[in-house]
């Protein structure tokens, strides 16, 4: 770092500060023989820190268990952790560092769709596998990048699975309340597309600012149009707000949340009575078959952290096992070898056998999709996953 030329005193100071910055850099060192996996997740604001922490816990547990069992092909496995802050440019640069500095064999733990889509370019540029699990944008797999894989759902699939449910319940007028993000508007578009197969259902999308604190105006507007059902497509805070304020302004429709946010701990304390009758879709149900691998994951997670893992953590676990299976097949940890091996990798996942669909030109490329969607209803205050009534299943 002696790259600067002789400078004025002030510029000299700048150089010193810069040089100091470089020397103090936290350098991660890895033994030659270790297999390194990159974890790039939202670990600080404005990223989704709550999910980021859950991701990190899952990853740490997996690494610990694998190394206790002797590693993969006799080599120890290490995790190189990077924070994407929920920002595209940070996530992209973090992934690049995972690849160039830590020599990661594969990148896992990526979360927000917009960040993932940015990171896909890095995966392509360096030919390193990128495994997504809860980045829901169709684009992640529909772009058909050879390096990108997903064990987890995608927007248009979830929207399509909502359609039979809407038909089953006999809704005639449905409003989608969507936040102005990739998540909210992405779903709204996909659902509008999917609902074309139900000409008898009239559909309206009401958009709102994601960071809003007051939805009474939106809910009054929706209430006045007297729909049969409102699908609230937003992350948890506005989910709670829309339910509470919707009932406040006399909304009588059934409320279906975008995902299983009502299972989060602050649901009942913030919505109270208004939460009764809310329906939520999820991939997780006690009736779901959990494999031996899955049961082992649940038990060790409970032992380590004292709580049950959420369903997305199952998929992350499968992501890690996919990489493990690919390394075992190829006997190599070189990223390019894994990119070649992953499409045909098959292994026992947490809720069934996992294999990728490889239909080029479609969203089902490097995509696993064998999950059932459960619709569950909360019938009294305080209901959790175990008490919720199963009202419909889409296989």
């Amino acid at each position: 770092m002696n790259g600067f030329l002789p400078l004025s005193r002030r510029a000299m100071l700048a150089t010193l500060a810069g040089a100091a910055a470089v020397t103090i850099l936290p350098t991660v060192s890895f033994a030659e023989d270790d297999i390194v996996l990159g974890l790039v997740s939202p670990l600080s604001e404005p990223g989704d820190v709550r999910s980021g922490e859950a991701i990190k816990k899952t990853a740490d547990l997996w690494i610990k268990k694998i190394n206790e069992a002797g590693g993969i092909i006799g080599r120890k496995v290490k995790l190189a952790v990077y924070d994407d802050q929920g920002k595209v440019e940070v996530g992209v640069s973090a992934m690049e560092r995972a690849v160039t500095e830590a020599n990661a064999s594969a990148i896992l733990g990526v979360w927000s769709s917009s960040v993932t889509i940015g990171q896909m370019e890095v995966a392509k540029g360096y030919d390193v596998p990128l495994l997504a699990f809860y980045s829901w944008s169709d684009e992640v797999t529909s772009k058909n990048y050879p390096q990108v894989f997903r064990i987890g759902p995608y927007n248009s699939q979830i929207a399509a699975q909502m359609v039979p449910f809407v038909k089953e319940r006999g809704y005639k007028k449905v409003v989608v309340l969507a936040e102005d993000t990739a998540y909210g508007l992405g779903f709204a578009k996909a659902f509008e597309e999917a609902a074309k197969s139900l000409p008898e259902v009239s559909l309206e999308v009401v958009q709102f600012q994601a960071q809003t604190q007051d939805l009474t105006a939106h809910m009054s507007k929706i209430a006045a149009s007297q729909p049969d059902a409102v699908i609230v497509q937003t992350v948890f805070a506005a989910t709670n707000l829309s339910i509470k304020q919707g009932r406040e302004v006399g909304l009588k429709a059934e409320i279906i949340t975008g995902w299983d946010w009502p299972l989060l701990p602050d649901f009942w304390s913030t919505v109270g009575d208004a939460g009764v009758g809310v329906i939520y879709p999820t991939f997780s149900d006690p009736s779901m078959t959990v494999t031996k691998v899955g049961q082992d994951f649940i038990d060790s997670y409970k032992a380590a952290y004292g709580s049950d893992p959420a369903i997305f953590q199952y998929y992350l676990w499968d992501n890690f096992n996919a990489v493990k299976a690919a390394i075992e097949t190829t006997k190599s940890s070189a990223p390019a070898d894994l990119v070649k091996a992953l499409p045909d990798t098959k292994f026992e996942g947490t809720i069934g056998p996992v294999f990728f669909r490889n239909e080029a030109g479609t969203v089902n490329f490097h995509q696993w999709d064998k999950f059932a969607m459960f619709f569950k209803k909360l019938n009294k205050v305080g209901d959790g996953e175990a008490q919720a009534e199963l009202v419909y299943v889409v296989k």
Partner: protein
Amino acid sequence: MTKSMHYAIAAIFAVSGVAIASIGVKPIFADLLILSAYYLLLAGSWNLLAGFAGQYSFAHVGLAAAGAYGTAAIVNAFGVSGWLAFLIIPVFTAAIGGLLGLVALRVRGVQLPLITFAFAGAFAVFLAAASDITGGSMGMQLPKLVAGFDRSPYLILSGLLVAAFFVIQNLVLDGRIGLLMQSVRDEEEVARGIGVDIFRIKVYAFMITAGLAGLAGAFYANYVGVLAPSMLSMSEMGMVVAMAVIGGLGHRYGALVGVIVIRSLEHFVRGFGAEYTLVIITAVALLVVLFFREGIIAAVGKRLDRSVQQRRWASAKAS
């Protein structure tokens, strides 16, 4: 410092950009330097507007965002090369800045920060809500200026842009317009009395600094490749203001020192955990605002003067 020294500093930046690029640095350090150039352009031009012309605008990052989105728009819609954006966008944002000035400068004093704040706020709502046009929080993508992951072109460009900024700043401050800007800041009524067209000077200051903000935005868009509304959050504007204030408002190298201090701080304190970064940075900025109102440069300068005087006094006594 003499005039030629100010130009020498600009030249040093241009050369060191090339030097660093040819030596090659770790990607993380390259990213740090490149984005620091973006912040320097922003904080430096805000310092010109607030520190020298006395016009405290809170729409500055908004103008950079307009420049960045503008770049993405012309690259995507008309297939214009990203390089051309460096020429087109500053003109475009200077025009917006001029319009903003024409409108916002109808109010005076502390109302100016408020009205510009409102413009920036409304623009941020638009960027997020009009997702059909802007991509909303999903972001707006554009192809990179140089394909691949090589940072050297951007390092060279950073050096050149910083050099260009200092050259422009020198031209403005050493020219007639700079003097008039400072007269408007210091004694608006007196300046008016001696026949300075105050309104015109203010609008020019808005246009020049908006052009520089647009240049920063075009650079950001071309380098990062994905734009999101978070680019113009309140805390980003706060960061830019903090950079200018820490170094010293109204000092030619105030923004440079501020950018160095804040970017290094950001870098060092990352290790404590990201949530502490913002606390430490804002605490430092607040302390400087409270106790070193003229900024670090002036505070250090005074101390140096004092110690020089003491030494002289001591040596005089000894002899």
